[in-house]
């Protein structure tokens, strides 16, 4: 139960930071999403984000910063295993399940569903 509460709080706070940026700076949601993924990569490579995941669980991995962290984690692992080649393979390899499922489910849903009439 406490893990669910921790996930709620962690995910909630990350979203609040994004909402405050939207309200006070007027940055478009698309740019916020880009900013959060890149921030996740930076915090991941610095070893800060894994500590947030340790605390928040899915509350840290589900926001886009978590996607960035996955990319960073993957690239570190691949560099440790294969050296320089890992720089190019690690990120996408670690994020491959997310990317492939987003494309697959996204494509199928786009095909089968009708856009709301405006």
């Amino acid at each position, binding site marked *: 139960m406490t893990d*669910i509460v921790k996930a709620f709080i962690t995910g909630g706070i990350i*979203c*609040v930071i994004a909402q405050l940026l939207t309200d006070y700076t007027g940055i478009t949601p698309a740019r916020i999403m880009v900013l959060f993924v890149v921030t996740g990569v930076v915090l991941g490579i610095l070893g800060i984000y894994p500590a947030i995941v340790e605390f928040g669980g*899915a*509350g840290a991995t589900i926001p886009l910063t978590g996607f960035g962290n996955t990319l960073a984690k993957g690239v570190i692992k691949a560099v440790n295993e294969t*050296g320089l080649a890992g720089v190019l393979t690690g990120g*996408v390899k670690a994020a491959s399940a997310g990317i492939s499922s*987003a494309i697959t489910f996204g494509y199928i849903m786009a095909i089968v569903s009708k856009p709301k009439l405006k």
Partner: protein
Amino acid sequence: MSKKITPHEYRHLVEKTMPSSRVLRNVLAAFVTGGLICAVAQVFFMGLKSMGVDEETAFMLTTVIMIFLGAVLTGLNIYDKIGKFGGAGASIPVTGFSNSIVSPAMEYKREGYVMGVGAKMFLIAGPVLVYGIFASVVAGLIYYVWTQVM
């Protein structure tokens, strides 16, 4: 107590309090929406772990499940409503990433399956992937150099 205020003063008062209360509403909605989505994901994660799935795979599968749910809810025109209420609380979780793929793909279906669905899917997801992957390569390069020097 019942101090009378002029319409002008009233309007001034409204203008002064309105924006901050709107921000407060947005922040609360983002917290609750983002928090709830992550809490649901945490339940899936804990379920997977109790089935004996290792932690890394469980996180990965949880992300896949949430992407699936985001795509289905977008297809049913429900996620747009969640987004209208929750703002960043709906767009920052991976369900929002999924929504950003399905939503334009549905809308541009009339432009065909290649340049409509195929291309417009990545209207927002494209930049996210470009900058995310590019950042990971740069970070990896820095990490590689660091491991060689140290």
